[in-house]
């Protein structure tokens, strides 16, 4: 069977080994066969307790919600930047530079800054106080550690925007001017061209990158640890807590959580590859 697999695929498998190994080990650990307190007999108790624990699904759901919201905001903004500022004019170039400048800023810095700005005694609260809108930090609506995850969503969106904007701008530039000219001479107004040609091509091309940023936001530990509430917990934070739990059984549960996270990542990877194969060639 292995003999039929081309050599380069085996190389790729080697690169993926740590993940594949992690999956295998996590599966064994959550069944109690490997890891601390392991026994020779598989035991479904830990698996059962992970799967039936409401906390598990609340955390998974909440992390998905945060990743989805932040990615939706960032993708919309990135698409808007590419569509609204496409030319060589100075103002357009300036707008594009602004959108892409924070590209290499780490998640951690984005999250820390969000904390400085959006916390109840942060800069935003101070500005609102100066404007007479609130009189004490407690009156500031909670954006940090709140169940809505507003600060976390904004921090992740801020971090994702530059990357998605870079891709969207490259795509926008790659949409041949000829295509838009063709649509114009067939009777489409600039708005119609944007709606029927440019945007449909742009979002299809952007989709793989959107999936990639989604899965990065989903897995971002440091942003969640700084900005997410305790309940519902973010999945990466909950996993980390379980790893450090003094109870051995709870540590085993961490592997169950890791498996869920890896499952989400695997689906995203497959979707990334499928959308790239399907739409990647529409825009060069």
């Amino acid at each position, binding site marked *: 069977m292995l003999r039929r697999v081309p050599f380069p695929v085996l190389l790729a498998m080697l690169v993926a080994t740590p993940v594949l190994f992690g999956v295998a080990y996590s599966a064994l650990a959550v069944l109690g066969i490997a890891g601390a307190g392991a026994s020779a007999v598989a035991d479904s108790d830990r698996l059962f307790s992970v799967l039936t624990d409401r906390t598990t699904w609340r955390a998974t759901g909440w992390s998905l919600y945060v990743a989805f919201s932040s990615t939706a905001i960032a993708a919309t903004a990135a698409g808007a930047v590419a569509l609204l500022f496409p030319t060589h004019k100075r103002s357009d170039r300036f707008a594009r530079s602004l959108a892409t400048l924070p590209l*290499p800023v780490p998640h951690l810095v984005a999250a820390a800054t969000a904390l400085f700005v959006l916390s109840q005694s942060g800069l935003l609260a101070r500005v609102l106080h100066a404007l007479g809108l609130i009189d004490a930090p407690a009156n500031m609506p909670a954006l940090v550690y709140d169940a809505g995850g507003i600060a976390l969503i904004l921090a992740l969106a801020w971090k994702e925007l530059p990357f998605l904007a870079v891709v969207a701008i490259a795509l926008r530039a*790659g949409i041949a001017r000829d295509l838009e000219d063709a649509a114009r001479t067939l009777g489409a107004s600039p708005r119609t061209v944007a709606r029927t040609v440019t945007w449909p091509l742009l979002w299809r091309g952007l989709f793989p990158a959107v999936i990639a940023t989604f899965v990065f936001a989903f897995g971002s530990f440091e942003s969640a640890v700084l900005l997410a509430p305790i309940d519902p917990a973010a999945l990466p934070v909950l996993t980390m807590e379980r790893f450090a739990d003094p109870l051995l059984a709870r540590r085993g549960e961490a592997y169950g959580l890791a498996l869920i*996270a890896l499952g989400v990542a695997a689906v995203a990877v497959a979707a990334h590859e499928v959308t790239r194969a399907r739409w990647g060639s529409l825009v060069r």
Partner: protein
Amino acid sequence: MMPPALVPQSRVLTSPWRAMAIAALAISTVLPFVILLLQSFGESWRWPDVLPSGLTGSAWRAVAGGSLGRAAVNSAALGVATAVAAVCVALPVGRSLAQLQGAWRHVAAALVFLPVAAPPIALGAGLQIVTLWLGIASTSVGVWFSHTVPAIGYVSLLFLGVFTSRGTEAEEAARTLGASTWHTWTMVVIPSLRAPITEALAIAFLISWTQVALTLVVGGGALRTLPLEVLTLVRAGQDRPAAVGALLLIVPAIAALAALRLGARRTDALPT
């Protein structure tokens, strides 16, 4: 009189809205940096002051010789080691993957993408065991090893893209002109890859430089990196040194931006 030039109008938005959009972008981009600067120099910034009442360079002066300084050196060394290792592995891997066609190509690309996409905490769970077996858990080498895993995945994808778009014509030409494998690589492939290699080094460095979860899980606190230090400071409410650390984290990142710009025209890139 000359009629107005008929430049086809492609504007989708009228100018007041454009101006507002640009202003919003400017605020969102610039404000965080301003805040970090203020925070790092601010002295006694009490509620409800919008600006700090005084400025001090104490946190910056404490960097050299302090824990932030040591952590930055650790992180830089770790980043360089990760970048070099990742590029050395990923270059031949990417080259090899580029030869695949059809479904296998997608399978291979997905496999390579896995360590990049896997949530670091979950990836760390597996890597912790591997490093335990290898006897490098909770050591600097173990942390370096864990950083190279996602870096290799990312950079392999980058080289896969590069080798796919450039084809093998130049190599074939070199071969038919009588070049050996060695000469083909040293005189044709690598020199012509200077830009993507620079880009790959920068990205791999950044992956390591900004890594938190893997360092924490695999290193178990044995290696204090800059992001770990910053995370601790922020959580402890030590805003001034935390802001200094955050700015230190951005500096090489911004420097690497120049290299990343090279890849800005590729649409199959991945976020860091």
